[in-house]
């Protein structure tokens, strides 16, 4: 099975081409084909990633050498605990997005183009998660980024095009920062393989450009992760995309492109230093607080969720910035939880828009009478997001706050607490405005969304309620611990990869 790991990249990217090819021949008649093909692809990918999580024990990573060229010469794919964890998050949320799209995307033309782009996005992210060398990392990053630019503008309304343009310009600058620092590293070490770079740097730590490289990486990945003050593109871009894509962008893309990149580069390649972690902590504290305060002022439901993502990514990076075992555990767990509840909330907003044709919360009222499932799942999802027990967000925030107190970052613990309160305030306000109260005349005809959409909502709602069980030691051991260990080994990553490569 180990030889099959390139399938994580081959299948989605191959599917993208196949769907596009068939679609361009059959045009609108290809709708069902595109639905079924993409569904099968993401189901396979999800099962495949779960298989690796359960089967592989990740004492050592699984390696795959392109064309059998061993590192540092060839291109290497590395599947370790962290990659596998990220792969599960990507592919599971992608599965949900496809399931939701079947009905939701019916109103758009050229559904096959949508699926082709979606597959490209997934393929790019899977590639990032497994890439063992920096150049491929960058290539996959660009594949997924470009796919997401197009997906944001998929509705081709003026506002969506504007948002996509802004997103493209700002995200490209982020990419340039990352490319520049990769170039600087290459100039210094003469290699692009992550493990090799790590060893070269470890052997000769005094390198004048290291500061610049670190800063370029922080800014570049900070922009991809939408940390304050690099967040400006997100509130425009995420709401403009179709709802399943918004769910994927907010739930997964910012984490894979931003948080995962940051963690992989700084923990496993460059080695985490006190200064870097302090900068990450400052940025994450700012994101948590500013994101949620701006969230409170929104009346567009998807924009509100977008600001919430800024705040929540702050929590995730708070955990990684602390760098303690408990902090990393909390960060990973919150990453997973956020992916679940934020995609749920975006799907919810999609369901609302699907029925009411508006995203303005002041125009909606009393919807729970007509859409009980959507209403109930919003209720659970927003409680998860605010960290109300016993839903999943509570557990990860609990761990994060305990970790922050343990690391004696009391101010950050306080910010995390206050942000959680404000998140609660913001979500309950929406709940009050949109779902409770009396139904206006104009919305009298709405009904519950189609079955594939409600199925998505129900699955994610159940996860929100039950994911607290992840902390039961035996389950945690399988799901979270191997990812946590992959981060905690730090620059020993290189040693492990080379040991495995020489076997």
């Amino acid at each position, binding site marked *: 099975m180990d030889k099959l790991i390139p399938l994580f990249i081959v299948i989605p990217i191959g599917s993208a081409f196949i769907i596009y090819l068939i679609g361009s021949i059959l045009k609108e008649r290809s709708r069902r084909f595109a639905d079924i093909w993409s569904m099968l692809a993401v189901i396979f990918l999800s099962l495949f990633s779960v298989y690796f999580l359960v089967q592989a024990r990740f004492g050592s990573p699984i390696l795959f050498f392109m064309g059998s060229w061993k590192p540092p010469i060839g291109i290497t794919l590395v599947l370790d605990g962290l990659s596998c964890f990220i792969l599960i998050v990507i592919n599971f949320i992608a599965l949900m997005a496809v399931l939701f799209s079947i009905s939701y995307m019916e109103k758009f033309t050229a559904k096959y183009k949508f699926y082709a782009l979606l597959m490209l996005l997934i393929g790019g992210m899977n590639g990032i998660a497994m890439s063992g060398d920096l150049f491929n990392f960058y290539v996959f990053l660009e594949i997924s980024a470009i796919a997401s630019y197009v997906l944001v503008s998929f509705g081709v309304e003026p506002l969506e095009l504007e948002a996509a343009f802004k997103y493209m310009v*700002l995200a490209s600058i982020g990419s340039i920062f990352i490319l520049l620092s990769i170039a600087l590293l290459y100039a210094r070490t003469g290699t692009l393989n992550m493990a090799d770079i790590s060893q070269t740097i470890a052997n000769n730590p005094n390198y004048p450009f290291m500061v610049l490289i670190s*800063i370029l990486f922080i*800014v570049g990945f900070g922009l991809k992760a939408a940390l304050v003050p690099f967040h*400006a593109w997100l509130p425009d871009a995420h709401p403009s995309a179709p709802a399943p894509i918004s769910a994927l962008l907010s739930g997964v893309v910012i984490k894979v492109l931003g948080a995962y990149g940051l963690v992989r580069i700084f923990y496993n390649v460059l080695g985490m230093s006190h200064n870097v972690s302090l900068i990450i902590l400052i940025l994450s504290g700012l994101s948590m607080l*500013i994101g949620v305060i*701006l969230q*409170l*002022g929104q009346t567009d439901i998807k924009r509100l969720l977008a600001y919430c993502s800024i705040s929540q990514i702050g929590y995730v990076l708070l955990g990684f910035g602390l760098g303690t075992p408990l902090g990393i555990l909390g960060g990973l767990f919150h990453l997973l939880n956020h992916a679940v509840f934020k995609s749920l909330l975006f799907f919810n907003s999609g369901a609302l828009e699907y029925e009411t044709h508006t995203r303005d919360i002041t125009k909606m009222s009393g919807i729970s009478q007509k859409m009980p499932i959507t209403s109930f799942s919003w209720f659970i999802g927003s409680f998860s997001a605010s960290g109300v*027990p016993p839903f999943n967000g509570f557990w990860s925030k609990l761990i994060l706050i305990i970790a922050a107190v343990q690391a004696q970052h009391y101010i950050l613990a306080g910010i995390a607490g206050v942000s959680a309160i404000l998140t609660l305030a913001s979500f309950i306000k929406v709940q009050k405005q949109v779902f*409770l109260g009396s139904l206006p005349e104009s919305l009298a005809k709405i009904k519950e969304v189609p079955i594939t959409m409600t199925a998505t909502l129900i699955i994610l709602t159940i996860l929100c309620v039950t994911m607290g069980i992840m902390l039961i030691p035996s389950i945690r051991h399988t799901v979270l611990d191997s990812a946590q260990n992959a981060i905690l080994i730090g620059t020993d990553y290189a040693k492990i990869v080379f040991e495995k490569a020489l076997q």
Partner: protein
Amino acid sequence: MAFWDTINFGLAIPVLVPLIVGLLIALYSKRELKSWKNMVYFLTVLVTVFIFAYTLYLVLNVGWRINMGNWLLLYPFSGFILLATLLFGFLIAVYSYNQMRKSYFVYLLWTISVSCLAILSNNLVVLLLAWGAVAVLLYLLVSLGKPGAEVSAYKALVMVGGSDILMLIGVAIVYYLTGTLTMNEISVPLQGAMPIIAFILLLIGALTKAGAMPFHTWIVDSAEKAPVSVMALLPASLDKLLGIYLLTRISLDLFKVLPGSAMSIVLMIIGSISIIAAVSMALVQKNVLKLLSFHAVSQVGYMVLGIGTGVPIGIIGGLFHMINNAIYKSALFLGAGAVEERTHETSLEKLGGLAKYMPITFLVMFISSMAISGIPPLNGFASKWLVYQGVIEVAKSNSYAIFFLVIAMFGSVLTLASFLKVLHSIFLGEKSKTISKVKEVGLGMYLPMLILAILCIALGIFANIPINYLFSIALGTPVSTIGIWNSNLTTILLIVGIILGSIVYLLRKQPKIRTSEVFIGGEVVSPEPQVVVSLPDGGETKTGVVDIEEAKIPGTYFYDSIKKIKLLDDIYRVADNKFFDIFEQAKKTISLVIKTGRRIHNGLLQTYLGWLFLGAIVVIAIYLILLLK
């Protein structure tokens, strides 16, 4: 089998049974079926009876100390609170016959379940879980009320849920300090910054739930719109029990608040401010539910004051007051609910003369009004007396405590004054013309009220039994009081007094009837308006008109004349503008920040690019500063 051997699984029954039954009711049918209503009602009552009886059986047969692993622990104190909780759950369930919605019963059962979990929990995280669940259910129950209830529900959840999150930080600090989450293993001396911060964070959680000032505004806002039985269940009884239970746990077990220490003074100040400020607000309310809700805040003051003294007698007083308050406050809310049920009216101005038509409700309201005002020999007096004793005990070494004593006593007087207004406006005088036929409420509604009223009397007369028996085993301290107070003697004296008075009344000749001007509270009543209210636009409007022909004198404006005092008038005006409401203040501050945020998010790409580079420069600056250090 090992699982069953090692733990006392029976302790989970009060938590699991209502949870599961609630779930079954929720799943059974999607519709709000009328035909199932009776079944759901009886099932709910049955469950509450069962778990109450079961817990009683458990306590009496197995003992007052049972634990289920490190998770749940029943010890005398928590057991007592648990029994009280279950009793109130049962009474409210009986009262809820007229509730039409199935979801109400589901939430009611779940509320009882998670409250039991909160009380039994011996692990801080389990406590947090249950605590949060109570807040969510409170939100759900309040939003079942009249149109517009969702706004108050929103405020309630943000305040209570927000305080939970602060508690979470408190728990994190406690865990950091002690390395354990098992509550009965934790004992942190209140010294140094960290323990004090942790204590304050947990205190905020407890006080918000109990509704002490300045975290009280959610109770007041919910009062008008929420279903009345919900007010009687949560803010009036269960939330008080939980909040004060936690307050006691943190100030006696987890941390030690010593008499005369800074934290003790803080608690006493919070207590006295709650007493006096809330009761002053209650005096001028025009809606009976709102008035009661301010008393719900005011009475918490006595409990906090009592526990804050840190001396055994004060603590016992505070705890006894908690039980007593839950009894008479829910009786009052249920009574007001009965009035609302029959008249569809809660405004004091529009009610009147109901004593004739609703004698049982009147009797219950009368007894519980006297109890809340601390009239001997009712229960409210007994517990207030103990609280005063506690404060005097502290005052022996710290003379400033006398000040708290004066406030507490003065608050009690004002309580009586405001309840005279309630009784007069609802039950005495002439019936308002707008209200047509009124008759007494049904058995299901007055039975719980009567039980509560009887408890008011019984706990007052036989106050020594609960004080000596239950609280001594709960806290393990003997009780001694100063001053002469013997409830049995007093009761006998009182009864003798009543008999003597009646004899005198019967023996004397019928007096001549003297006619005079109608007056109230020393002020002659004239057809002129009693109160002139200034409108914001500069004009004036006249309210409180007395209709001499109808002989109807609305009691609504009894104490409005205190607003004529300049300083008080200002304070009331500021309070009406919600100046003291931390929720509204926070909202204002944040909306200012949001405005600024909007201005800088102008949507221009150039601006955003500017930030990006500015941000990059700042990061570089921070990095270099760190490097140079």
